[in-house]
């Protein structure tokens, strides 16, 4: 045995010998006597289930000396400073510690923390093309743009690129169109959506316009820019290809794929057929209507066109293909431009910082732009004027002020203190009707009141009722004849407010009150007659007398577009060119128009942007657009205004839709939302 012990080789330092007595015995301490303590040895008392914490100084006061007050600092001189307390004043180290209520520790910011899920790379996030996404995040991102261009952008710009352009060889308009078509084709065939330019719609519209004068092959454009496709990490748990709720499905009325049900060899197509509880289809069963599904006339439809089979199968090539018609274009090579010997670069309008090459490019672009130049439309042109002075090249030279001669005289008079006619200008000003009422002053009649101002009103429009259209005609005539006699107010007078719009109820009381003194009594009587007639027909008896603007006159009143009479007349000459929307999208209106067998009760449905077709169809004695019983001829020729005006849906003066007017009272409920 000894020999075995001596053969052992020891390595390392031995541990200290254990003193058995000093070891704390584990089991002798009872559980009841074991207390939870924190790092300071203080007993943890509160929050036992969450790990426990002790409050204050052994659960009594804050420190050995009790609660320590904050040092007093005189605030006499700093009275106006806002004294406030915050929660941090009451927290101690434990609260600010790891398990406290407000842990304050040094952490890595989420954007730099690689491990957290919030980690967003410091690299610039490329724009995400999301399908059917309802989030506004891309919009918000677009709001913030960097101040300086990146290096890549700078390089591109030096090579002639401009922001919003694409990169690549310049294309003619035709080539561009072709590109777009290819994109659409790809989308159609492969079902995927290539990133498209937002302005593709605009271009589509522009292409419809005739560009007969311009030889488009000469003009090249930069290719459209496209947004690079960024592969998005899938961070969700629904299946591949799952598309969330798409607004389009709900808000638009796409033609649904009708479900079909086949029974005994016969099929029924339509909404809800084929979609029952036993079916798997999750077809949208909400009703989607489209006008193109309806017939507008009886008889065989002309819409069916058989697509001719242009190519036979046996063309000597694979099924589904045909021999190409167009020969492949051989790539053309262009030679360098020949510069004439005596060509010198002339003075130009370009800044000195631009290189010659850039100047050339700009020149060529201006030339192209000039070819495409179209003068500004009227509305825009009114806001601009030609400068009176020529452009000055020396930017440091001070520009002389343009001097108005009239104002000069005025200013001189003012300096010499000759105040009076030279410094005074008079304008006609039309005070508002309500303003005159509040000041208890009768409305002034001046030349200005006869103008039908085009400015927008501040009053709420309750819609022009038919009455005003009729009345105003007669009224204006009456006033024009007699206004020189009348210094006082004319009771039916055109309001001196800035537009012709007044709701009907405000008119009637005026008329009734001030009937007596004027020369145009007869005409007024005539007007009142007609008005009474309309009133009797249309007004409900209760809605008469109030002067309040919130009153609604009748149950059914045609609510045309809110426009002055002038504008109505202007518009009757114009035809709407905006494309039909909604259920009218697929409707082919042209084919419907010139049909000779329009019955009297044709429903040419009126919507706001619909094209008025009446002007095309000649109005005979009997207007084919009129429906309802025919009015006897003696009434039409009489002095009474034609009630037929009312029934004409396509009248030239009023473009209106019969709509039930909501009581304004309902709107009052909405008030109590905001207090502050």
């Amino acid at each position, binding site marked *: 045995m000894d020999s075995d012990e001596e053969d052992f080789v020891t390595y390392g330092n031995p541990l200290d010998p254990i003193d058995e007595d000093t070891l704390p015995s584990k089991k002798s301490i009872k559980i009841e006597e074991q207390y939870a303590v924190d790092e300071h040895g203080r007993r943890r008392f509160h929050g036992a289930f969450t790990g426990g914490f002790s409050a204050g100084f052994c659960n009594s006061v804050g420190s050995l000396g009790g609660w320590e007050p904050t040092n007093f600092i005189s605030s006499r001189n700093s009275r106006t400073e806002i004294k406030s307390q915050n929660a941090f004043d009451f927290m101690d180290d434990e609260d600010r510690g790891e398990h406290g209520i407000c842990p304050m520790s040094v952490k890595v910011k989420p954007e730099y923390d690689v491990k957290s899920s919030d980690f967003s790379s410091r690299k610039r996030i490329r724009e995400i093309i999301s399908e059917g996404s309802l989030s506004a995040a891309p919009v918000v991102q677009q709001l913030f743009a960097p101040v300086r261009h990146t290096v890549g952008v700078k390089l591109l710009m030096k090579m002639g690129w401009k922001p919003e352009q694409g990169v690549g060889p310049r294309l003619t308009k035709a080539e561009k169109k072709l590109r777009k078509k290819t994109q659409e084709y790809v989308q159609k065939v492969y079902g995927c959506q290539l990133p498209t330019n937002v302005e593709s719609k605009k271009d589509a519209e522009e292409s419809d316009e005739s560009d007969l004068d311009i030889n488009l092959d000469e003009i090249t454009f930069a290719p459209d820019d496209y947004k690079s496709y960024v592969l998005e990490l899938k961070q969700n748990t629904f299946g591949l290809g799952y598309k969330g709720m798409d607004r389009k499905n709900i808000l638009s009325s796409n033609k649904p794929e009708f479900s079909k049900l086949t029974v005994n060899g016969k099929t029924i197509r339509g909404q809800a057929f084929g979609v029952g509880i036993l079916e798997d289809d999750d077809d949208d069963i909400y009703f989607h209507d489209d006008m193109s599904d309806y017939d507008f006339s009886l008889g065989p439809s002309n819409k069916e066109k058989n697509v001719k089979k242009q190519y036979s199968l046996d063309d000597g090539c694979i099924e589904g293909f045909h021999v190409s018609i167009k020969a492949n274009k051989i790539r053309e090579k262009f030679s360098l431009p020949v510069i004439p010997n005596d060509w010198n670069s002339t003075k130009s309008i370009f800044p000195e910082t631009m290189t010659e090459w850039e100047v050339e490019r700009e020149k060529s672009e201006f030339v192209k732009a000039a070819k495409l130049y179209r003068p500004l439309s009227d509305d825009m042109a009114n806001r601009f004027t030609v400068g009176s002075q020529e452009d000055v090249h020396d930017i440091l030279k001070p520009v002389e002020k343009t001097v108005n001669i009239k104002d000069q005289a005025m200013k001189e008079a*003012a300096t010499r203190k000759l*105040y009076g006619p030279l410094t005074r200008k*008079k304008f006609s000003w039309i005070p508002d009707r309500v303003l005159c009422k509040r*000041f208890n002053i009768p409305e*002034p009649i001046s030349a200005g009141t006869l103008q039908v101002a085009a400015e927008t009103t*501040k009053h709420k429009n309750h819609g022009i009722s038919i009455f005003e259209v009729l009345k105003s005609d007669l009224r204006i005539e009456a006033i024009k004849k007699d206004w020189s006699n009348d210094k006082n107010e004319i009771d039916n007078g055109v309001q001196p407010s800035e537009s012709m719009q007044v709701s009907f109820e405000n008119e009637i009381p005026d008329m009734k009150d001030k009937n007596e003194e004027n020369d145009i009594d007869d005409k007024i009587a005539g007007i009142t007659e007609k008005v009474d007639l309309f009133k009797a027909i249309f007004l409900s008896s209760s809605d008469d007398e109030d002067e309040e603007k919130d009153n609604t006159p009748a149950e059914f009143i045609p609510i045309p577009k809110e426009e002055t009479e002038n504008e109505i007349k202007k518009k009757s000459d114009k035809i709407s060119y905006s494309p039909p929307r909604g259920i009218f999208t697929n409707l082919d209106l042209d084919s419907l128009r010139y049909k000779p067998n329009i019955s009297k009760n044709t429903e040419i449905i009126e919507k706001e942007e619909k094209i008025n077709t009446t002007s095309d169809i000649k109005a005979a004695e009997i207007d084919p657009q009129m429906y309802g019983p025919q009015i006897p001829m003696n009434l039409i020729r009489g002095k009474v205004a034609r009630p037929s005006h009312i029934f004409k849906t396509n009248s030239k003066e009023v473009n209106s839709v019969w709509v039930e007017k909501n009581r304004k009272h309902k709107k009052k409920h909405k008030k109590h939302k905001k207090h502050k």
Partner: protein
Amino acid sequence: MDYVCTQTIDCGQGAIRAVRYNVDGNYCLTCGSDKKIKLWNPNKGLYLNTYAGHGNEVLDVASSCDNSQIVSCGIDKTVILWDVIKAQPLRRLRGHAGKVTSIAFNEESTAVVSSSEDNRVMCWDIKSRQNTPIQVLKDANDCVMKVKVTANEILTGSLDCRIRRYDIRMGELIEDYIGEYDKKLCFIDPVTCVTFTSDEQCVLASCTDETIKLFDKKTGELLGEYSGHKTNDYYIECCIDKTDSFIFSGSIDGSIWCWDLVKMNSVNQLIHNKKAIVHSLSSNPIKKGILSASGSNIKVWMSSSLLEDTELSEI
């Protein structure tokens, strides 16, 4: 002419932006930079009520003819109509695009006219619940500093050097060019001058060229010019006393300058505060007296002759 200071009230509102008498001269209102309006009894120096609700400093205030409502305006671009007793805002009229500099009731207190830094003057309807202005006057080319309303006119003074008088009865706008670009219009005060001829009316205009001009309303001619005070670039108000005998103006030297209207000479200088600017004045509509505001306190000045009378009557 002897005006004595009968009361000095420290309003405790930060800086007073404007002080105004009410319609009968028994109460006055102070607009403070602390966004509040305070109602006082100036004769007794008593504080009565506070109206808080503006989002920023209050610049002008007017009281209604029946003392039941107050309308105020401020830098927060709003006009607020208050109930005097409840101290609650009744209406908030939003429409201006810039700070609202001045406000006035019409005679019957059924409409309110406000002028603003956005070059607009807006007329509001108090009677109805309309929250949009009845009419917007857009003729000014620069900030409209002051608006005053009489029985049938609206008078506005703008920094584009023009006084505009909107005559509602005649349906006219009369624009008076006052001075060159550097002589901007500061403050105006319509005045009924009985001393000239009956029914003749004058307009008092305080200009930044440190003069106060008196114009004939009908012809636009200059009737008088008063100077001596210092305004620099500040908005210093002027007023005329009830009897149309004296013209008062604030000044940056801390005193109120008084001139005899007819003689155009400087009669007196009432010292309000030697260290601060006196910028706001209000003339008592009933008695001969004025209010002046400087810094954070206001002073009530009364004609000494009046005081003797009141003392006698009290005894």
